[in-house]
């Protein structure tokens, strides 16, 4: 079971509280986790990755196990602790005013 922590606005859109859990077959990558997330919560399509290009939206970052994974390949393996469900994948909005 993969754990994902979403920013508050995306939790509101998805209608969830707290972490989201997903069934994701190995190998566990950014792409496979986000595909599973969007399949379970289609209202999040386009909010983390842009439609069409599937590029990470510019003001969002991915963290896990105290590492910044934002610039890793979408097909790179996520840390084993994330794949094992011990640590969440964090989707974090850039800290900025507005």
């Amino acid at each position, binding site marked *: 079971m993969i754990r994902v922590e979403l920013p508050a606005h995306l939790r509101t859109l998805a209608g969830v509280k707290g972490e989201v859990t997903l069934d994701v077959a190995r190998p566990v990558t950014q792409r496979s986790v986000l595909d599973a997330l969007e399949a379970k919560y289609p209202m999040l399509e386009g909010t983390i990755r842009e*439609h069409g290009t599937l590029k990470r939206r510019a003001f969002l970052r991915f963290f896990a196990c105290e590492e910044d994974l934002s610039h890793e390949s979408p097909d790179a393996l996520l840390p084993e602790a994330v794949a094992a469900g011990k640590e969440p994948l964090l989707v974090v909005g850039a800290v900025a005013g507005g």
Partner: protein
Amino acid sequence: MSKVRLLVGTRKGAFVLTSDGRREKWDVSGPHFAGWEIYHVKGSPVDPDRLYASQSSGWFGQIIQRSNDGGKTWEQAGNKFLYDGVPGTHQWYDGTPHPWEFKRVWHLEPSLTDVEGVYAGAEDAALFQSADGGQSWQELSGLRGHGSGPHWQPGAGGMCLHTVILDPSDPKRIYIAISAAGAFRTDDGGKTWKPINHGLRSQGIPDPDAEVGHCVHHIAMHPSRPGVLFMQKHWDVMRSDNAGDSWQEVSGNLPTDFGFAIDVHAHEPETIYVVPIKSDSEHYPLDGKLRVYRSKSGGNEWEALTQGLPQKDCYVNVLRDAMSVDSLDSCGVYFGTTGGQVYGSSDAGDSWTPIVRDLPAVLSVEVQTLA
């Protein structure tokens, strides 16, 4: 008794303000979509309880919301706005080519005849259409394909398609406006488009009379005279009596002809309203006095409407989609400000009252007159 419903989009959410036909006491509902920019909310003329809202954020992109009960509850519609084919480039502020990138929806225009039909004006400029209540969107790419697209440039607020006007007498005719490309018209339902900017003059572009490149801020039309258009350009208030084929300046005695909003009285097609703004760099009313100007002659002769509006120390702006009129017997006029006030007049502008004073910056105001 009739009711009036105001749909207010702000920098931090949407608000729905309702009143009976007397328009004296208002209920305020919201914020809906708290914390998100709501560029526009508009109801279907076919079913006024069907509302569409454009919800966006620099972080999370574009969301379209839909209501079937007049804004009490909402459901998320589709947000897949993909340009048709390879979008190519337009000009950046410095004149260099810049790739077309979807940013947000500025304006939603529901169909006049089909509750599931709705148009979306986008930044970077394009017109999208949905036939299924906003679930899926297709670009009417003949607009960008007109040929002048590579020469379009953004205005200060981005290269936005902000105005969509449907001709009630001809379902195939649509007017749109883009900052800073200008106005365009289709007569074949969106397949092909022509620029309709003849007569506009814009200082600050290499050719002041160019076919495209004009910063049109907003256009208004009275439904009984769909060939007559009124335009607030960056500078200049203009009118066209031939469906945009040519324009004449009608700024007349306005103290400044810069501004954003323009609208037409519900029952008097020659009575129009603007809110003059000091200049393109200052973006607040002249002399700190918030004044709506009304012309009862279709332009040129204007009178200041000040009763109930702040006449000193007022430095708010009124944005392009933030003025609207109701269709009650005594026409109601409404506008919202970047200071968070929504003002209403139930006597066609003679006097004004703040309906709310402390909303987030108002981006848009639409009115529904309900039976």
